[in-house]
């Protein structure tokens, strides 16, 4: 085990104000169980889970309430005991609606029911368990990528035949401003992360391990060095330069092992890499060793308008309003409420939305930090082109989309865009370039879907 500096620097990137000092020194605190949870069936990337309970049912903590529904999907388990009040379509942070279970956690079970005891799943000894058993455990624990995208972890850990994982990369970069959830996790739960790494190494057939941490987190680097000191095999901690978006999968692979993931639809596994967020790794350790599925996660509640910024351990399905109340409420009027970080998070319209497995942060921005922009004409300054970590001509894409030329945007490789926001961040004319890219990607995806449907209909005929 050794600590090395990153040898590779990707082009572009920006330096936003990190504002991490707000919550950096706050230890992880567990929130008291809220009276009501709203558990969404769509907490991950891919098909939403299929709800298998009905209103009036009494459910036990850890019980499967949503079944995996397709290949790219994971199951949903309830994060607490309680009675299902209703099943409704609820708005998620990204603006989509999905079935959600409204759970009354104060309700008592009817009649005599044995008190739930013991672990939810049978604990496994990872040294003796087979690879298949471990994979199955990751799947039944409902684990998905906790960094933000929520890709089902069991799919990632099971490379298609013919592809081998040579590097397992641990994403501890946490390059999003304000967020400190992963940082606290690395400080406080380093041994769990190490255990998770050993389990994942077994599942993936013994790849080399790279732990990627940004240079502005020396304590986290130290904690990981201590935890991994006596590990055998090819393990390195790679110290990355402070640069947004260092936490992007593709850029992290380049920064740690110097490999370049080709354009979509290529995946990291095509260059022999699997990247997992440190939170996910700790969740895998819990699922295997303790038999505890993914039911809660650490969420950073921060931003200038919250009274006490905190890193909160909260059950998935906790409403934002409960999180805010736990953190002492609002210190000053909130102008913008963001689920996630300021670079890639989602602005939401109401605190009645609830957390999911991927909610890494909740930011309450006061008026002074939440700008309302008036966009001006592009002056062709090229700042977005220089800032783009994917080396796209963002100005060109934005101009094409602005004049409804989706084809032009597609020719300018808009589908390669990772929506990191570096272009909009650096634009002096306050143009919503990232949103233009989203618009183009959205209509291109819709068109591809329509073409597919048409082809399928034609094939049926």
């Amino acid at each position: 085990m050794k600590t090395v500096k990153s040898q590779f620097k990707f082009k572009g990137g920006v330096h936003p104000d990190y504002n991490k000092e707000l919550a950096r020194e706050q230890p992880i605190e567990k929130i008291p169980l809220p009276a009501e949870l709203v558990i969404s069936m769509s907490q991950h990337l891919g098909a939403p889970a299929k709800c298998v309970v009905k209103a009036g049912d009494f459910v036990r903590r850890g019980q499967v309430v949503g079944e995996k529904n397709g290949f790219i999907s994971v199951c949903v388990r309830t994060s607490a005991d309680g009675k299902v009040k209703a099943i409704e379509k609820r708005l998620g942070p990204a603006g989509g609606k999905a079935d959600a279970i409204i759970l009354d956690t104060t309700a008592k079970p009817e009649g005599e029911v044995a008190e739930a005891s013991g672990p939810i799943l049978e604990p496994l000894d990872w040294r003796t368990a087979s690879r298949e058993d471990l994979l199955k455990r990751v799947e039944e624990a409902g684990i998905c990528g906790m960094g933000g995208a929520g890709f089902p972890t069991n799919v990632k850990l099971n490379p298609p035949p013919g592809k081998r994982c040579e590097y397992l990369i641990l994403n501890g970069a946490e390059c999003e401003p304000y967020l400190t959830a992963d940082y606290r996790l690395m400080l406080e739960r380093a041994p769990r992360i190490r255990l998770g790494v050993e389990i994942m190494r077994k599942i993936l057939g013994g790849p080399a391990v790279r732990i990627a941490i940004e240079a502005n987190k020396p304590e986290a680097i130290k904690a990981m060095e201590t935890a991994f000191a006596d590990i055998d095999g090819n393990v390195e901690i790679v110290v990355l330069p402070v640069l947004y978006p260092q936490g992007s999968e593709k850029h992290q692979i380049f920064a740690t092992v110097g490999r370049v993931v080709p354009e979509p639809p290529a995946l990291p596994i095509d260059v022999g890499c699997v990247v997992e967020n440190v939170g996910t790794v700790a969740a895998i350790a819990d699922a295997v060793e303790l038999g505890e599925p993914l039911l809660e996660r650490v969420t950073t509640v921060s931003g200038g308008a919250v009274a006490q910024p905190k890193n909160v351990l909260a059950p998935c399905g906790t409403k934002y309003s409960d999180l805010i109340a736990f953190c002492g409420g609002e210190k000053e009027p909130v102008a913008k409420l963001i689920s996630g970080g300021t670079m890639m998070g989602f602005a939401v319209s109401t605190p009645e939305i609830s957390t999911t497995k991927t909610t890494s942060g909740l930011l309450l921005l006061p008026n002074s930090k939440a700008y309302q922009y008036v966009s001006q004409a592009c002056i062709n300054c090229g700042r977005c082109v220089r800032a783009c970590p994917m080396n796209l001509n963002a100005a060109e894409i934005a101009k094409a989309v602005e004049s409804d030329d989706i084809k032009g945007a597609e020719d300018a490789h808009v589908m390669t865009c990772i929506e990191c926001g570096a272009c909009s961040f650096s634009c002096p004319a306050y143009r919503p370039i990232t949103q233009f890219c989203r618009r183009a990607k959205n209509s291109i995806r819709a068109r591809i879907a329509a073409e597919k449907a048409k082809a399928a209909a034609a094939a049926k005929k």
Partner: protein
Amino acid sequence: MKPKETAAHYILSSSPHTHSNSSVSRIMLDVLLALLPTTAVGIWFFGLPAVWTIATCVATCIVTEALCRLAMGRDNTIGDLSAVVTGLLLALNLPAGIPLWMAVVGSVFAIGVAKQVFGGIGMNPFNPALAARAFMLISFTGPMTTWLKPLWWKTPDAVTTATPLACMKGMFAADATAHATPHAAAKALEQIPCLWDLLIGNMPGCIGEVSAIALAIGAAYLLVRKVITWHIPVAFIATVVVYSLIAGGAPAYAQVLTGGVMIGACFMATDYVTSPTTAKGKLVFGFGCGLLCMLIRQFGSYPEGCSFAILIMNAVSPLINRWTQPKPFGAK
């Protein structure tokens, strides 16, 4: 009846939710600050006429911009300071003694025709100040090529028609027949001011183009503030140097330090709107400007070709942009 709105209204916008705090007006302010030294030197050497020309151009540009936006029914954009920059750049590219009404006509042309007709800031294919200068050079050739001597109030014949460039043009030809008349070449060389005068700007010329040192200070400020990148100025000036070394004629330092090369390379060619966005494109653009500038100086009918060189490259800029598209990360 409309239901009562109880919930707090949050701002809903697409990510990112933070900004680098750069702005168009801040960039333009930086350009103005960078032009301060050369403006000061111009006023020092050319006196009150320079002050009047600068004031007239800036004021006319602002008024024209406001009137055009009003007439087009668009938002007023004088707040972004781009009109002030255009006005100042145009004034710095005029001889100090020019009749003020001509400066007014030029400024109206710069903003009204070269900029707002195309839709305002960001839309113009040609640098407005340069387009106006070319327009004035053709329309008012006499006054546009009549120069005040530096510190003219101290010399008996204040007005001259020849800049060092005019002498240097002859030297290209003199070089060819150097063996026949070595005296002619030596005589021409004598007419070029000494290096120190070239650097501080003690020579006849436009208000803002004479002092290389002042321009270099401004360019350095822009580079430090990351308003411009090094690519265009370096490619431009390097091309001029290499060309003059190959073609002979006046010494390379004189080619760089006289005429519009310094102000053109640092302030005119680097105009965002009319130059390519990528680093590679900027190098090509700078090279093209330098080459055309020297070709016009050697073979053209005007002694100075800097403005025309940049204008021609402005026209090619979209093409260069197209050829030098960046290759996406991970693309083959």
